[in-house]
């Protein structure tokens, strides 16, 4: 006799995700992942100025803010054959790295940690012992017995108010929590410290892009100008600010995040055998070191791994009409030529077709359509994307830096590489790559300073800014790696306007419903076999789902019904445009 467990809303994520799982004899035997919100941003983009698209697309997600802006400007630059100046590439890289550092730390402490850290147990910790453990794993200065005692007193007072706020009615005391009280107290301390720290590293976005969330991007480069002799531009003060933020950020990652990850993991090694999922991994790669056209010199390599075979990397090209395709057999959309066939995003064709139960509902009709996410496939294969995919592709590609970082982490855990194919492996991979990114950011920073020293200060090329220089039709792809995985935007330009715009997003790869062949996507596959001690307390389901770091607003957006062209918008060379 099996039980249907519904977890809706899945909290501590971005967006609206619902999981229905069939639990039998204490294990998940089947699962369905559903995105339950849609906005239709691609339809809204139709008919607009391609140079504006980044701002619309950026609003797809405020958590991985910037990644859609980056994919968008790259799609336009690809379509129009624009090469951005080296400093613009470096500044984009620095913004990319700052996002990873912030986003991965926030994921670990604020979205994922409470799956592993028992807040109530922390109240029972001995501050002396906590201090001893903290000092044994890290040189981080906030580790005295008094520090932990004060924190514990504050927490105790908070709990005694009876108003537990965001910590209320959770799973405290669940037998799946394994950490000793002292490690739990360290986790809670760093939860609060990370909350304060994360608002600092994003100031890099504010310096280069004017604000965070949602800093500004620009087709053809970046909007900030460099002038070391001017108060109103990137000068020595601004650059020194960036440098300090990067160094502080790296210190937090090296002295807090990584030690906590490595102190937590040994208590949960059973989770290296749970949550493996689909066994195929895709990375578009990113962080160019010699211009975006030189894919071979990305810091994160590009490629696909099939069936966990690390001896072979398959090439990926998002332009390939037979590579990435999206299906809608189980998604609330309709294809003109029938729902069975997948379509390449340039030919992407979608129309809302809600066939689910009228809300309020108890269960979705999972036999039919059950999600606002489409189902992307690469040559017919379901692919996992994200930190684990990036680390595996880098490892398999023989990238020395990635290989060393992975090997070092595995040695610390005394575990073979096979443990990576799991819930815990996903969480560990995220920490490993954060460490790399923090290091790379400092390299990019030094390169930017060197360029400026050598008189290279360009941040923008106006070569193709004027739409009168564009061909009548053009199409492009902008690919990147969002913190949550492979992301690309496909764009068709016609008569200086957006004719079609499609996004295939990290969480769409991971959280999508089954395909026409019945193959599960990564969330659904990873849940199979996940233990469930108490169906009323879905803590273990949260662990596996959170290990992917879901971002649903990103994943759901696909709609290109016949939108009315925005005829009142006139695009033309700047200076000859009348705003409306």
């Amino acid at each position, binding site marked *: 006799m099996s039980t249907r467990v519904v977890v809706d809303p899945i909290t501590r994520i971005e967006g609206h995700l619902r999981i229905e799982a069939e639990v039998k004899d204490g294990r998940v035997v089947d699962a369905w992942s559903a995105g339950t919100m849609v906005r239709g941003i691609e339809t809204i983009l139709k008919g607009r100025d391609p140079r504006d698209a980044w701002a619309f697309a950026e609003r797809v997600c405020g958590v991985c803010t910037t990644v859609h802006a980056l994919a968008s400007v790259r799609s336009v630059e690809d379509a129009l054959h624009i090469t951005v100046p080296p400093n613009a590439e470096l500044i984009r890289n620095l913004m990319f790295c700052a996002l990873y550092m912030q986003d991965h730390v926030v994921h670990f402490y604020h979205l994922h940690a409470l799956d592993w850290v028992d807040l109530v147990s922390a109240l029972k910790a001995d501050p002396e012992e906590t201090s001893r453990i903290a000092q044994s794993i890290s040189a981080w200065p906030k580790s005295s017995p008094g520090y932990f005692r004060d924190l514990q007193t504050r927490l105790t007072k908070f709990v005694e108010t009876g108003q537990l706020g965001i910590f209320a009615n959770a799973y405290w005391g669940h037998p799946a929590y394994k950490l000793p009280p002292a490690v739990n107290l360290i986790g809670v301390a760093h939860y609060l410290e990370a909350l304060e720290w994360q608002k600092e590293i994003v100031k890099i976005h504010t310096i280069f892009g004017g604000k965070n969330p949602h800093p*500004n991007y620009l087709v053809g480069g970046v909007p900030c100008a460099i002038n070391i002799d001017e108060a109103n531009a990137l000068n020595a003060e601004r650059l020194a600010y960036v440098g300090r933020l990067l160094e502080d950020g790296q210190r937090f990652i090296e002295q807090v995040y990584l030690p906590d990850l490595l102190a937590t993991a040994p208590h949960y090694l059973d989770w290296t055998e749970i949550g493996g999922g689909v066994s195929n991994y895709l990375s578009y790669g990113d962080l160019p070191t010699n211009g975006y056209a030189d894919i071979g010199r990305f810091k994160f390599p590009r490629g696909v791994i099939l069936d966990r075979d690390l001896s072979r990397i398959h090439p990926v090209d998002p332009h390939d009409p037979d590579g990435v395709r999206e299906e809608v057999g189980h998604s609330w959309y309709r294809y003109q030529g029938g729902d069975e066939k997948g379509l390449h995003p340039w030919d992407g064709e979608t129309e809302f077709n809600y066939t689910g139960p009228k809300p309020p509902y108890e269960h979705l009709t999972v036999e039919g359509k059950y999600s606002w996410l489409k189902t992307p496939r690469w040559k017919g294969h379901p692919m996992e994307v994200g930190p684990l995919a990036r680390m595996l592709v880098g490892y398999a590609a023989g990238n020395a830096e990635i290989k060393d970082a992975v090997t070092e982490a595995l040695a610390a855990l005394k575990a073979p590489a096979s443990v990576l194919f799991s819930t815990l492996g996903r969480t560990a991979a995220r920490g490993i790559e954060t460490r790399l990114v923090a290091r790379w950011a400092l390299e990019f920073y030094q390169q930017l300073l060197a360029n400026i020293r050598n008189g290279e200060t360009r941040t923008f090329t106006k070569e193709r800014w004027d739409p009168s220089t564009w061909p009548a039709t053009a199409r492009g792809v902008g690919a990147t790696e969002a913190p949550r995985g492979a992301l690309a935007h496909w764009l068709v330009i016609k008569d200086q306007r957006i004719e079609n715009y499609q996004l295939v997003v990290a969480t769409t790869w991971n959280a999508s419903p089954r395909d026409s062949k019945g193959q599960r996507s990564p969330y659904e596959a990873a849940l199979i076999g996940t233990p469930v001690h108490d169906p009323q307390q879905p803590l273990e389901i949260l662990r596996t789902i959170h290990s992917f770091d879901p971002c649903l607003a990103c994943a759901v957006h696909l709609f290109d019904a016949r939108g009315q062209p925005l005829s009142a918008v006139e695009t033309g060379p700047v200076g000859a445009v009348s705003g409306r």
Partner: protein
Amino acid sequence: MNALPSPSQTGGLTLWEEMRAHGVSRRDFLKFCTTMGAMLGLEHSGVAAIVAALETKRRLPIVWLHGQECTCCSESFLRSSHPIVADILLDKVSLDYSETLQAAAGHQAEECKAKTMRENPGNYLLMIEGSVPLGAEGAYCCIGGRSMLDIVQEAAAGAKAVIAWGNCASAGCVQAARPNPTQATPVHKVIAGKPVINVQGCPPIAEVMAGVIVHLLAFERIPQLDALGRPKAFYSRRVHDTCYRRPYYDAGLFVETFDDENARRGYCLYKMGCKGPTTYNSCGVMRWNNGVSYPIQSGHPCIGCSEAGFWDASPFYGRLASFPGFGIEMTADKIGLAVGAAAVAGAAAHAVMTNIRKHDEIGPHLGEKPGESTTPSSEPSQD
């Protein structure tokens, strides 16, 4: 009507206040606490903590809903530097429901919300991030199998007041841009009879969000709002009027293309499409992320993200044709033309002359010859 009573003035009494109101003596109250302590197995010293807790004013309960959104408002809120978010959450309010942060999920999370609404009728704050889709009978946004519309209306009914975070909840934002395929609708259009504070922006500035919360807690009333429901403290000034690059506008000194010499001197971005003249927000005053910068300071024109319908005022790089409300300034082209033609025409108005003088004063410091126009004469005026 704008008064926001403290919990002790409304239904949200502390347990001691409630017991006293029912004729329970102080002595019996302490006895009750001792019994409670014994039941919980606490040492005698622990009883004092119970007494203190039950006597203490309760933190204001908050229900924070997510509709059609991107979570940038929650993310911005997390960036607050004064007060910092940990202090808000632990000491100032009780965030009882937040899909982004709360530990519980599924029905446990929903029970947190239900409990807060049940136990604090008329005495919790409702905060909403995201718009409400009215299409497809609500199926475009469901949480826990219920439509966002249903959830918002239920939660608003018992709320003391409603905060609509950001452009989505205040005006529909990007999903409400044409053709608005899901009928995305702002909060104030789907609820009635409750004060709604529209904290605009995409997202709002972190310290503005925290500032609105602090205002409610410290002054126990709703801040003064403008005609669009925005707090005047943060939305009564145009970005243009508070912009540190304003003198360049007045002097007719403009960026002509990104990364040109004028951009590198930080001239006015009006010709690059800046919407500062039609946008009310605190960017120029408070700046972003604890005062680090704001879009114009970092070289990009304002796109007007705190205004309703700003997405359909694109293209973003198209210059505003004209904007109302300027007594002493002319439009940029007129300034530019006047600067170039002043000597010939000799007919410049006093206001324009003032601007020319400013141009002449600022120009030489920046390596320009006095009277030199930065506006290419070949460029046709569209104004």
